[in-house]
């Protein structure tokens, strides 16, 4: 998450909505332009706005040493900051279908070794993600201690790393706002289709960063 320079100079954090690396329509026909615009400019933007407001309140409470207030702010912070973290990873993990490239190099080797094939990995992530109850996320993550890829799901906007310790590599948003206008209640079709716009270069970069962290 980027910190706004002006706010940082006041000693206060300020988070900004990251731009997409592609136009809203660029993921068609996998994810519609209408969804991408709402998802980014409304849903993600709201998480950033709320996160900034909460940061101010948290900093104020911390400065006063008001523990009770800090605790009371935690659920909203987890939700909104989690939302910002998750969506930043999500949007960066997608690319136009015309730019799709399968995994290569070290990432491909890891996938092959652990799952046998890219298809097998995708099937496993899909199988874990589709049945997520209510709103949540499916994740391909990296277990630093074990040096292995891992599959996990999280509820609501709970962020992967803070919740499980796994480093997020690729996330699938299964909140209904992520797919409903196009796929309606047929979530499996959306999850199966999203692999066509998976940005494996971004996944590889995240894996690289996780390994050297």
């Amino acid at each position, binding site marked *: 998450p980027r910190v706004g320079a002006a706010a940082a100079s006041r000693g206060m954090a300020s988070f900004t909505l990251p731009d997409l690396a592609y136009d809203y329509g660029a993921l068609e026909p996998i994810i519609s332009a209408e969804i991408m615009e*709402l998802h980014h400019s409304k849903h993600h933007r709201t998480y950033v706005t709320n996160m900034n407001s909460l940061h101010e309140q948290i900093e104020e409470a911390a400065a006063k040493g008001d523990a009770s207030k800090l605790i009371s702010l935690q659920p909203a912070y987890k939700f909104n900051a989690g939302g910002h973290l998750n969506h930043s990873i999500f949007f960066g993990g997608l690319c136009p279908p015309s730019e799709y490239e399968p995994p290569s190099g070290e990432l491909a080797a890891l996938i092959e070794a652990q799952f046998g094939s890219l298809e097998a990995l995708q099937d496993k992530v899909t199988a874990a993600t589709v049945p997520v109850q209510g709103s949540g996320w499916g994740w391909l993550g990296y277990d630093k201690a074990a040096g292995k890829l891992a599959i996990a799901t999280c509820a609501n906007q709970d962020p992967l790393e803070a919740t499980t310790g796994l480093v997020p590599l690729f996330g699938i948003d299964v909140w209904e706002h992520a797919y*409903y206008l196009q796929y309606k209640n047929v979530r499996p079709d959306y999850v199966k289709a999203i692999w066509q716009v998976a940005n494996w270069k971004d996944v590889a970069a995240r894996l690289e960063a996780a390994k050297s962290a």
Partner: protein
Amino acid sequence: STSAMPLNPHPAGHPHRKRSPEPRESTSAMPLTLMELPYPAEALEPHLSAENVTVHHQGHHAAYVTKVNAAVAGTDMAEMSAAEIMMQAEGGLFNSAAQVFNHDFYWQSMSPTGGGEPAGPIADAITASFGSFDAFKTQFSAAAGGHFGSGWAWLVADDAGALSIVSTHDASNPVKEGLGKPILTCDVWEHAFYLTHKNKKADYIQAYFSLVNWEFANANLTA
């Protein structure tokens, strides 16, 4: 309230039985059947679109009925209502059974002739418990709008008839959680409103108040 909630598999007491004989809940045993909407799918327009209502009812609500039936077939729960199953089950079966109950309650909580100010016992109870109808609307809107993720906002009554507002997460409900007798509910899963209102959840909650079925609320309160 710390007193045990008596299980009532027909919490609404079939409020409309006098006027129409068709079942209002997906509670007939062996197997459960999807309740009919109490009104045509387009009857809630413009507050909820016909497509929104249809996909919600024929897609989501129907799928929960199917899942329950598949899960309990051949077991002693195959004779039970959704409300009975939800009280005994956990995990996936609880989710499905509770969502059958919740959606049954939701469709009845709205009416094409609903909305406006409450009348009857519910009006008095709202004034007594919240101070005013506006105060109730503000509080209910906050509960519905402020819920993190999927869930439901409920108006509930305790044994003494005092009202309060609770929100429950995902498939849960006040009966399961022992939070009181349900009077009204508003579904705040995104599928409940997205096809009509997209991301504008506040617009949906406002629209809900144009549909709220005070007759159903009165029937539940006095049951």
